[in-house]
């Protein structure tokens, strides 16, 4: 993976909700950059705009104004169908509540993104093997045929990570990945994310937990819709990145 490639580049990203006097500015001219292979945390109190920023970075919504380049492609003005394709091929999601399909095996859960892959990067007969590889990578090689209700929280989150990895995305967005876990399981999940980071994955973690943020190289603090400050943890495995 090219270490100097820019994965996220936003300029003056702004998101307002509502119209006229009742409008609320959730995101106020945010510019930031994330290089390939970085492990970044976005922190901030509730109402700081971190969820809005995460949704735009994750291509679940589009900015009101400003520009967002993901992996060199301007995605600020794409329609629903194009955004769905970007989410499918370029982004891997990890949610606080795992969001696995109930009564569906770990293997089928991991395969899910491939079902919606229009580029047909992997032929159907390879799906199962690919999903097995992913589950082995997250240490669940022996739990493939288990359904979510038969797995612990930490194991469910690892299935979710395997699902995020299967399309080989350019970045992983984790929204409070340890929020529903006890400290021990949370630590295991963070170690797994660190391992993936060391293998070159680009990871953005949205959290309010300082313990989680400590694992990252750079913490972007949001306040009232703009970037308050950026803390470098001195753990950069790659070149020093420039933010703001």
């Amino acid at each position: 993976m090219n270490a100097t490639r820019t994965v996220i580049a936003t300029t003056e990203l702004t998101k307002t909700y509502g119209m006229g006097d009742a409008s609320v500015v959730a995101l106020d001219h945010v510019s930031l950059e994330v290089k390939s292979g970085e492990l970044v945390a976005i922190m901030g109190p509730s109402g700081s705009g971190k969820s809005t920023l995460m949704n735009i970075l994750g291509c679940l919504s589009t900015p009101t104004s400003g520009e967002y380049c993901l992996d060199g492609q301007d995605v600020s003005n794409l329609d629903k169908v194009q955004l769905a394709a970007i989410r499918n091929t370029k982004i891997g999601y990890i949610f606080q509540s795992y969001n696995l399909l109930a009564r569906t095996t770990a293997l089928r859960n991991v395969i899910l993104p491939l079902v919606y892959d229009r580029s047909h990067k992997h032929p159907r007969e390879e799906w199962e093997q690919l999903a097995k590889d992913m589950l082995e990578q997250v240490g669940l090689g022996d739990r493939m045929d288990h359904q979510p209700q038969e797995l612990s929280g930490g194991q469910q989150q690892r299935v979710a990570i395997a699902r995020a990895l299967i399309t080989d995305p350019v970045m992983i967005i984790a929204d409070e990945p340890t929020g529903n876990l006890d400290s021990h399981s949370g630590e295991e999940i963070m170690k797994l994310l660190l391992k993936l980071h060391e293998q070159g994955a680009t990871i953005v973690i949205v959290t309010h937990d300082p313990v989680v943020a400590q694992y990252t190289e750079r913490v972007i603090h949001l306040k009232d819709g703009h970037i308050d400050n950026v803390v470098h943890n001195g753990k950069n495995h790659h070149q020093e990145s420039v933010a703001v």
Partner: protein
Amino acid sequence: MNIGEILRISWEAIGKNKVRSLLTMLGIIIGVAAVIMAIAVSNGTAATIRDQITSLGSNLIFISPSFTRNGPQGGPDTGGLVFTDAAAIQQSVPNVAGVSVEQGASETVKAGAVSLSSIAILGSLPDFPTVRSMKVASGNYFTQADQDHKTKVAVLGSGLAQQLFGTADPIGQTVQVGNFYLDVIGVMAPKGMVGDVDYDARLYLPLSTVLQYYTPSQFARFLGQRVRTIYVTVTDPKKMNDTINQITLLLEQRHKVAATAPDFTITTQQNIISTQESTTAAFRNLLAWVAGISLIVGGIGIMNIMLVSVTERTREIGLRQSVGATPNDIRLQFLSEALLLSIFGGIIGILVGVGGSVFFGAVGSMRTVIASNSILLAFFSAAAVGAFFGFYPANQAAKLDPIDALRHE
């Protein structure tokens, strides 16, 4: 996303909620089974009626007195049908193969110790068996000589022969009919019930004998040789209408009535069949409407469950969107789920409907004829109902915003 994958997802979703899926399908199952059984029963009824009517003989014209003029059967000089009308038709109308006249009566019949009251008597002409497609099982039908001489002879219906004489041979025996003794010369082959009339429980006599000894009253006898019905068979069924017109003209002249106010009515076998068929068609249409309404109710059931399902699975929809499902993918998923439910319901309904029709046909007194186009109709209506009522919930699912859907509790 290919069709196979969509179907797989829908199939899994249905399989995860087996009881609910079955309950959802129930409306469709009942609707489809009702359509098939309703049509099978009404087809069976129609076929039975058609068989009965054609078993009376085809190419048949019925002439009966009309009751609209001067009270029942008109006045003594002009109204009603008389025996000589039949002879006139036989002589002067072309394309007539046979004319049969019938006059009914009812008397007590005795043979030895057996006495049966209110036995139907049918007075007819010698060619009655030919005209009405009936066969004589043993002995003979009476002849023209019997008719000419008002001979006291009788032919028994098979059931009546059984009742009067048991296993003994009735031919050559004597029966007492009313106040007169008649010689039994023949027994008819079994015919069964046609409509309300039991052809096997009747007594067949020469028309002249009936007119002489068994007409209801002296007054009626005084009115002349009045008959209830004249039956005419035609040689060439294609010229049926011409024949009817000629008979009409002849009878109008003989009765001295205007074409606008005839004192007789002419019907054909075909008229009766089509009247019966339009009756059963109305019956069938009614049943089909009822069945169709239950299909629609079933469809509303599917829509209801699909809407619940969309709400219940909002987070799943959000997740699918976040990993790359487009609105169309989501729409197709829910639409195919509704379609699968209704198609499975349709298939089960067909099995139930066909099974039920066969069962009732075998067990009950009803005759059922399963129409293959009713199966197709029911199946495609079920699929159409699924598509129609599945569309709205599927569209609701497709319209969901991924962020809201993921946040949904």
